């Protein structure tokens, strides 16, 4: 007996040809806009071979740029981690007036242009800023110095951890915490033993994104840093300087480090998502 040509499953699929065309279009789109640029970074970096590549990375200015980037991230990420958890707890576990306004404010740095993120700190701490005279009187530099870079980085990475945790914690609800309380646990015990284990994967993901952005931030840091080689240059800024000097290979070499960081972040993220079994999709 001949098999029926259409079954009920076909109610939800398109004709085969249409499917393959759509897949091709999608793949082409991704290929052109994502794969090619990624590959370009590495081919350009290695254009003059491995020796030139490594030489560019161990050059003193490059090393201090790497060092500064790591330092800034080491300050900004833990701070945003702790405060991100605090903010997520306040928002997800309680109901109060003005909650949505608070969430909007927490999300604000995410939607502000990086240049404007830097601008506001210049307006606050710069020579002609609000606190400018106060700072120069005390010979304390924020803008065009490391503190400014740290502040601007904290600003742009402010929402990352909270954004990941809030929907996760809201979805998990308060049942388990209530159960722990009824059983006699204190607030701290409840948090450490019950809440934290439940949010650990979302927390890890938030920290990863926070770190990737902290190390790779360009616009905001560019505005506040002053581009002083060897002092206030982070890796992205160093990439720009090298590029503008037409030192392409070195520029791409440093850039490739950042690209590797991005790839590692994405890989860990995929592993995490696989582990929690196709959990809630990430919104950006």
């Amino acid at each position, binding site marked *: 007996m001949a098999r029926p040509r259409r079954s009920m499953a076909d*109610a*939800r699929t*398109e004709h085969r040809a249409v499917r393959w065309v*759509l897949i091709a279009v*999608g793949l082409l*789109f*991704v290929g052109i*806009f*994502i794969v*090619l*640029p*990624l590959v*370009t*970074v590495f081919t350009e970096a290695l254009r003059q071979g491995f020796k030139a590549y490594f030489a560019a990375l161990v050059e003193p200015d490059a090393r201090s740029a790497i060092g500064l980037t790591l330092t800034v991230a080491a300050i900004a990420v833990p701070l945003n981690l702790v*405060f991100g958890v*605090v*903010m997520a*707890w*306040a*928002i997800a*576990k*309680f109901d109060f007036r003005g909650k949505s306004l*608070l969430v909007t*404010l927490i999300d*604000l*740095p995410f*939607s*502000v*242009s*990086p*240049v*404007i993120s830097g*601008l506001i700190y*210049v*307006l*606050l701490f710069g*020579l002609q800023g609000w606190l400018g005279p106060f700072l120069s009187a005390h010979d304390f530099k924020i803008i065009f110095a490391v503190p400014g870079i740290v502040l601007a980085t904290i600003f742009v990475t*402010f929402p990352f951890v909270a954004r990941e945790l809030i929907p996760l914690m809201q979805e998990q609800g308060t049942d388990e*915490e*209530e159960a722990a309380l009824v059983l006699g646990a204190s*607030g701290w015990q409840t*948090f450490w033993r019950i809440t934290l284990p439940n949010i650990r994967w979302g927390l890890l993901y938030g920290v990863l*994104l926070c770190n990737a952005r902290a190390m*790779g931030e*360009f*616009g905001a840091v*560019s505005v506040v840093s002053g581009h002083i080689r060897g002092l206030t240059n982070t890796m*992205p800024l160093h*990439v720009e300087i090298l*590029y503008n000097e037409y030192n392409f290979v070195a520029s*791409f070499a440093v*850039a490739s480090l950042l*690209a590797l960081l*991005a790839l590692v972040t*994405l890989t860990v*993220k*995929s592993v995490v998502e696989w582990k929690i079994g196709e959990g809630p999709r*990430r*919104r*950006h």
Partner: protein
Amino acid sequence: MMHDVAGPALLDRAPVRVHDPSLRAGARVETLALTQASPPTSADESPPRARPARRGVPWRPRSIIPGFGLTLGLTLSWLGLIVLLPLVALFARAAALDMSRFIETVTSDRVVAALRLSFGASLAAGVVNAVFGAVLAWVLVRYRFFGRRIVDALVDVPFALPTAVAGIALTALYAENGWLGAPLALLGIKVAFTPLGVFVALVFIGLPFVVRTIQPVLEDLSPEIEEAAACLGASRWQTIRRVIVPTLFPALATGFALAFARAVGEYGSVIFIAGNLPMVSEIAPLLIVIKLEEYAYGEATAVAAVMLLISFVLLLAINLLQRWSRRHMERR
């Protein structure tokens, strides 16, 4: 502590109660003297009790889950310090601007051209991302093909990759001797160092927003809806057009809004490929940076204020559009 420690432990008590039928009093279907139907509020078996005067409770916690005061306080402090204080500085500065100078700055040809480029290219890139992002999301959710997982992970690259890295990579790719730039040059299309380059860069960084916003909605789409449409005789295309697209529209609008907002403020990915010629290929954020380097804080603030204002208005419009479409859908 009220727990009676002296008594035997829970599990060691001898079973005292057997299922005692006499405790469930025998049938007493008596003739009840019924008054009105107002419900009794005291137990009918215990002796009548004078009802105590209603009074408030002695003390009540704000909430059962602890830590409200602490976390809210910390949140507000941190938020105020890092986000609100600097933003207030911005608005104070903007408010202190001399109105005539403000208008002069904002309406100068250079600024207008920069704003036009930033918003125009962002809109165009947003539209392209909406279309292709939707296709990509569909393909990733509905179809199975080799490498699907990898492609899915790659979608996040523009989000995770530092903007400067993206900027130089795109420039190298689309320059006249680049892998894509060369074939395009043969067709007479110049991408690098033109507004077209700006557009390409903005498509790059906006790509994940639409895809990631649509994917969860697609995944949650109940299969029964499509099956019902098919039962009723709709063709595949009709089902997509009349059933699926309207359902996806709010998510699509949201994704577009996110991509657009990100594109308008984008700096790092764009300045390398843009060419940065004033009046031609100069984006608004770059203009702000230039003005800052000239210590023209006032003018920089003015441009920033206008950017924020226009973005706010546009996003509000998109938000209203979303809400309208959602209500429109629910009414059906």
